[in-house]
Structures are given as structure tokens and as C-alpha cells.
């Protein structure tokens, strides 16, 4: 599968202090791992060093099915990065995951950029791989569920 957006956007990765490492490594292996508190059993996202609910430091990462519901969306027309010049419009989707305490993930909605967008639509994840080795990374994209 070719990438949804052109090459040349900044490559994502964990924070310098290592926060989010598990998430980025798992995407490489086509798995979605999200942070979950071992004390209160609730998911939280983005990753943090403490659970915002119970203040436990004992946080792990659990596998989550990459399926969700369109929480909001935007169709982008104006390029603000040189790599995106002439690549418009495209769709950014915000997806809520009911099976993970409704945490949300940002991605692109694959397919026709002019497709109708309806909040509440069920979507499923598509792993999108970029590059090789140390410079490689993977993104989680979305398409309307069939």
C-alpha cells in the first residue's frame, strides 16, 4: 500500500525520555498498544508517566483492536508544509475507541478525500509503514468499516 500523504513530513517517535516507546514499536509490528493503568485498569492517551485518575506510576500497554468510531474530522485544503504542496484535499480523522475507555487517535481517513463525513461512522485501522530499519516508522490510518 502506498502512503496516504507524500514523504517528507517529520518522522514520529517516542519522546526523548522514552515515553511512548512501546506504542511506536508495536505499530511497526501491526499491533495497537495503548497505555493502561495496572492499578485502576483504565486506559489513558496520550501516554504519560502517571495515571491521571489514580496517580499510580504502574502503567503498562495493552493490545487494543484497531476499530473505532469517527469522533470528528476535518478536510484539509491549504498546505502548510512543503511536502504537502499540491496534495489536497485530504482528510484528518479523530477516532474514539469504545473498547479502550473512548481514548482517541488522530489519523487520516483513507479513500476519496471528498467522501461524505459523518460523525459516528464505524472505522477500522490500517497500518501504514514508512522506511526501513532505524529510520522506519509506522502510522495507524483508518477506513470506513465494511
Amino acid at each position, binding site marked *: 500500500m502506498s502512503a496516504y500523504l507524500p514523504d517528507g*513530513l*517529520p518522522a514520529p*517517535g517516542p519522546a526523548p525520555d522514552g515515553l*511512548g516507546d512501546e506504542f511506536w514499536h508495536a505499530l511497526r509490528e501491526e499491533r495497537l498498544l495503548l497505555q493502561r493503568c495496572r492499578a485502576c485498569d483504565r486506559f489513558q492517551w*496520550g501516554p504519560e508517566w502517571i495515571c491521571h485518575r489514580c496517580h499510580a506510576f504502574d502503567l503498562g500497554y495493552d493490545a487494543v483492536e484497531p476499530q473505532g468510531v469517527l469522533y470528528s474530522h*476535518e*478536510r484539509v485544503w491549504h498546505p502548510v*508544509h512543503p511536502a504537502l504542496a499540491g496534495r489536497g484535499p485530504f482528510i484528518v480523522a479523530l477516532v474514539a475507541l469504545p473498547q479502550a475507555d473512548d481514548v482517541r487517535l488522530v489519523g487520516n481517513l483513507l479513500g476519496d478525500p471528498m467522501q461524505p463525513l459523518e460523525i459516528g461512522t464505524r472505522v477500522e485501522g490500517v497500518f501504514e509503514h514508512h522506511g526501513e530499519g532505524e529510520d522506519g516508522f509506522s502510522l495507524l490510518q483508518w477506513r470506513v468499516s465494511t
Partner: protein
Amino acid sequence: MTRTLRHTVAVAGVGQSTYYKHGQSPEPEFKLVLRAVLAACEDAGLSPRSIDGFSSYSNDRNDATRLAQALGIDDLRLAVMQWGGGGGGVAAAVANASAAIATGQAECVVVMRGLAQGQFGRFGQGPALDRIAGPYALTIPYGLMSPAQMFAMRVNRFMHDNGVHTEALRAISLASYHHAQQNPDAVMQGRPLSAEDYDASRWIVEPFRLFDCCQENDGAAAILLVSAERAKDLPHPECYLLGAVGGAAYRADAAGHNDPIYASSNFTTLAPRLYEMGGFAPADVDVVQSYENFTGGVMMSLVEHGFCEPEEVNDFLVPDNLIAPKGRLPLNTSGGNLAEVYMHGLGLVIEAVRQVRGTSWNPVEDVNVSLMTGGPMVAPASCLAFGSEATR
């Protein structure tokens, strides 16, 4: 003893540089700031050497110590910076300065912002980086990187939840451009905007068209605050601070768009605190300056400040209601960030002062309560209100 800023502080002076389109200032940013500060001092009838504090926000580059050195200030007592980006800190910078004056830490504090985007880079451009880490790694690789893109999904969700039509956003834009035509300092004076022009303008990111988005400018603005008592002996004793608050709601701006209260301008906790501190209610407000990074943020700011219910937005946000002097709630009467100047909201604070003084280019009659909201949809955000002598 009640702890409040109400009527403890007054705006002694306001000042601004010439405002330019981005990249068109012939002068360096620091010099623009000096001009704004000197203008505020002249307006206040005070020597620049009587300044003893500086308060700013958004990591302003124009360091308080350098300003104190440049102006030969004898006794610098206060140098405070509000955390957070964009214009979210504009009213909080007034709050921080006022708190210092009210508690005797300083006597004469300048709140300032210098912003020469032509010299230091534009906010509306994406980052030129090879790698991105931390919270932005969750968004930028998906092409979500400019402020307009960061906020459009919040606005889309609000419009979906409340059945809002794009005409409501258009009305906000038309009001700003209408008011700017009377303001000789407005960058967009002489550039009127019609509903047809708006409808024909290009999409930036839906639901924002070009004219839903603020300008990018070069310029500087400053206001000078003193105690209400001291202001009695100065040329402008008439504009008192009623209240100023900053902050953020629960988990506001959580990474990757995970804020629980998502379709929000982030005033759900601030507005009630402002009304409590100021001792007034939405119905008492005569005129509003509401920070337009994007029109959708104004819409949610007005709702969260109690000027209309979410389901009333389509009826409330029509040009007739928003245009001075006769509208139900005159809005952004200088032209605002869209059409006067984008000085991270400090231009809006100055206009809120002018409305109390009666010196706006689009004056609303008999203004007693003049409200300003800063930096919608960012965290922390902030808001303030000024009151006339009649509020004492």
C-alpha cells in the same frame, strides 16, 4: 477579606506601534515594542522610567531585562511570563500584572507583546523538522500541524452537536471586517468584506475559509497598569479592571486530541470565575472583544461566556446582532485579530479599554462593562473585563 482584583487596578495607558502585514515592518521587533511601551507611557502621562514591571505571554522574545536596560529603569520589581502558547495568556498577563500591583509587589506594570512574524517565522507554517517526538508525533505525521488544523475538528464537532450553520461563522468574520473599515490603524481598512466575498473564498481547512482565519502581522502593543488609587491623579482614571482569570479545564489540550470536553473554547471553568470575581453577569456586558484565531473559537467562547445557548447560535450569530453601535452584543469593534491586527490579542485588550473610555472608532454608547476573551481552544486560556466608574 474577599480576595479579588475587582477595582484594585486601572489601565493608565495604552500604546501600539504601527501595524503591518507580516514581513512588512521596516523596524526590528524590539524597536516596535519600545514604541508601543513609550506610547502607553505618553497616554498615561508617566515617564517610562516609572515602569517597574513587565508581564507578557507566549514566550515573548522581548525580554523584560533588556527592556528595563533599554529604558533605563531604576528599580525593576516584576518580570513575569504566563506559560502557554498563542494568545491564551493575553488576559492572564493582565491578571498576573494586576495581582502584583494589588499585593504591593510592583506599582506600574506594562503588559506587552511584540510580534514580527516576518522576522521570526509565521505561525501558519508547518515545522521544518526531520523528526517529531512527544505529543506532536501523534498528529503531525497525519498532516495536522497548523493552528487552523488543530482547531477545526473541535469546531466541526460543536457544529455537528448543535446543528450550527456556517453562516454563524461568516457573521463573526463580517462583523470584524465591517468594524475595521472605520479604524485607520486596522491593517484591513479599505478592504471591506461582503457575504459573497466570504462565500467565494477558498477553504483553508473545513469549516474554515480564508476569512475565518486571523491575519499574521508585524507590530507591538502595550498597556500600562497602576493601582486604581494612583490612576486618580493621571489623565485616564476611568477604566478599572473588574476581573481577569486564566487557566484550563480538566485535561484540556490532552495529547492527541484527548480532551474530555473537546468541542470547547476552554472557558467552561474560566467564565464562571470571571463573573464571580468581577461581580457581574453576561447580561451586564455592553461590548465584547473575543479573540479570533478562527471564527469557530469565537462562537464557542461566546457560548461558554453565557451570551447564548449552544442551540441558539444560528439565531444569535447574525451580523445585525454583532455590529456596533446598535447590535445586541457588539463584537470585535476594532476589527479584531481578523481585520485590525493579530497581536496575540493585546489589540483586543486595548479596544476593550477604548470602549470604556468612549474612544473606539466604533463606539458603543455608555459602556460600563467591557469583556475580552483570549486564545480560545488553547490551554491555558484567559479572559478579563474592564468596568467604568459607574461599576464602582
